[in-house]
């Protein structure tokens, strides 16, 4: 069911899509141990065109929530609906979204251009066309002249751009991002954040961005969804009504500082709670 749902015509999904999360829970059954509740009755609506950041301590289930929205995990209870707000027409989970992974998951044996073109290749797009589109998308994310390189020949920041291009080329209305910049050095991270802001502000997709960095969540997001330590619940949703287009200069403003303080006080409690618990085998 999950795989069949992928074969949807691209013009069906090149529209605005809302995500409604209704009473979603996820329980991991670990062999020989008591079950772990990763998510506990989460409700939220992610409207189209909004950049939502999921923020919480490690193990709060924020990555799991993103994977459930993307149809890559099934919820234990509750449901996800993905629908076009104007018509109410719905799409199966996974058909309207694409994930940018924490570990990037680039195919190490494929060149940069063939990594980016993978989604088009499996959809049956011809070689010349998919390469042309992949190169155009690479230019959009600011990476030209490295088409033939293998991922391991690139720097961390360049690999991020490849992964971003591979996701964006699918033209899905929902972009799921699971801590994509967590492994980058501080300067490269800032460059990538600004790049993402530029791309988001031009395309206005529905974005779910998982992070544990408060400044990143405020800089990028239209809202910050603060989650509790395991079991993951939504503790508070903080709207970020800072003007767009944004740049990294925003972090020096008073408004940013005030938001940071507010989010920090919410999150500090949860991090302290999370640290007091033993880490279980289940993924965050």
């Amino acid at each position: 069911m999950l795989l069949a749902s992928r074969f949807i015509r691209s013009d069906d999904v090149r529209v605005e899509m809302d995500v409604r999360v209704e009473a979603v829970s996820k329980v991991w059954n670990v062999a020989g141990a008591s079950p772990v509740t990763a998510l506990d009755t989460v409700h939220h609506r992610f409207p189209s065109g909004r950049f939502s950041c999921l923020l919480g301590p490690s193990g709060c289930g924020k990555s799991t929530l993103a994977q459930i929205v993307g149809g890559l995990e099934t919820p234990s209870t509750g449901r996800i609906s993905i629908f076009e707000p104007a018509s109410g027409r719905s799409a199966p989970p996974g058909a309207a979204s694409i994930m940018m992974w924490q570990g990037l998951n680039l195919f190490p044996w494929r060149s940069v251009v063939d990594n980016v073109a993978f989604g088009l290749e499996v959809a049956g797009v011809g070689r010349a066309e998919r390469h042309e589109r992949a190169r155009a998308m690479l230019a959009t994310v600011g990476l030209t002249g490295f088409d033939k390189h293998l991922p391991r020949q690139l720097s961390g920041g360049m690999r991020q751009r490849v992964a971003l291009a591979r996701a964006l080329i699918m033209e899905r209305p929902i972009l799921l991002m699971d801590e994509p910049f967590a492994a980058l050095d501080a300067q490269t991270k800032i460059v990538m954040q600004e790049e993402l802001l530029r791309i988001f502000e031009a395309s206005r997709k529905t974005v779910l961005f998982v992070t544990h960095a408060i400044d990143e969540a405020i800089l990028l997001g239209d809202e910050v969804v603060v989650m509790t330590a395991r079991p993951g619940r939504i503790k508070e949703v903080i709207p970020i009504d800072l003007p767009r287009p944004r740049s990294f200069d925003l972090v020096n403003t008073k408004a940013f500082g005030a938001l940071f303080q507010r989010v920090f006080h919410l999150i500090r409690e949860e991090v302290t709670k999370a640290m007091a618990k033993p880490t279980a085998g289940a993924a965050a």
Partner: protein
Amino acid sequence: MTKRRLAEIALPALSIIGFIAVWQIVVEVRGIPPIYLPAPSAIAVALAQMARDGSLWINLAATISRIFAGFAVAAICGVALGLLMGRSRIVAQIADPWLAALYPLPKISLIPLMIIWLGTGETYNIVMSAISAFFPIVLSTYAGVQQVDRGLVLAARDLGASPRQIQAKVILPAAVPHIFNGLQLGMGVTIILVVAAEMIGGSDQTGMGYLLINAGQVMDTDKVFASLVVMAVVGAVIIKLQRFIDRKAAPWAVHAGPHQD
């Protein structure tokens, strides 16, 4: 040329030349009988004579063709079964007890049975060669398929790949370093088993193993050494060639190893 590169080339060569020189001097000074230990110069003479009368080329060609024939059969069957086992739990469960029982069995112990069944002709040699290479190839392929990074499979699925596309475009290429590792192990044991099979197979045969045992029986010690030298060189060339092909086929895995993500 840097000092280091010079050392990389010069030291191994010096090591071999030095060893041969000491050997030659010790044999001459101590007057060791050639039947125990011929001088390197005598071995060279025997080698030249074997090359001139053609016995070296006939037997070397026989051995090499058996190695590659058996290896090719083992590679095709082994990779195919390994991939099938990775794809189907049922196939894996059916094959598993046989692999578990037969893999640790020294393949050389099958020689008497194979001679009873197949005689000592070409079939016997190739079957021994194929059996020996088959097991490491199957097991490495299967391990490679099982150890594929789950993240890559999920990413491919998210990008719209069907199960068949995931098999062909993710799992197979991801397993290539393991498969090549299995092929290298398989080649190593094939060389051993072909020569052993030739040694035991009987006197109506050809092959380096035959040449070796024949020379040993008539105490042609210089010919024994000449055969050993030829086999060592052939083995080294085959292994080096395989590594070279490996690097060309999977350049992305050379430094990173099979577990890079």
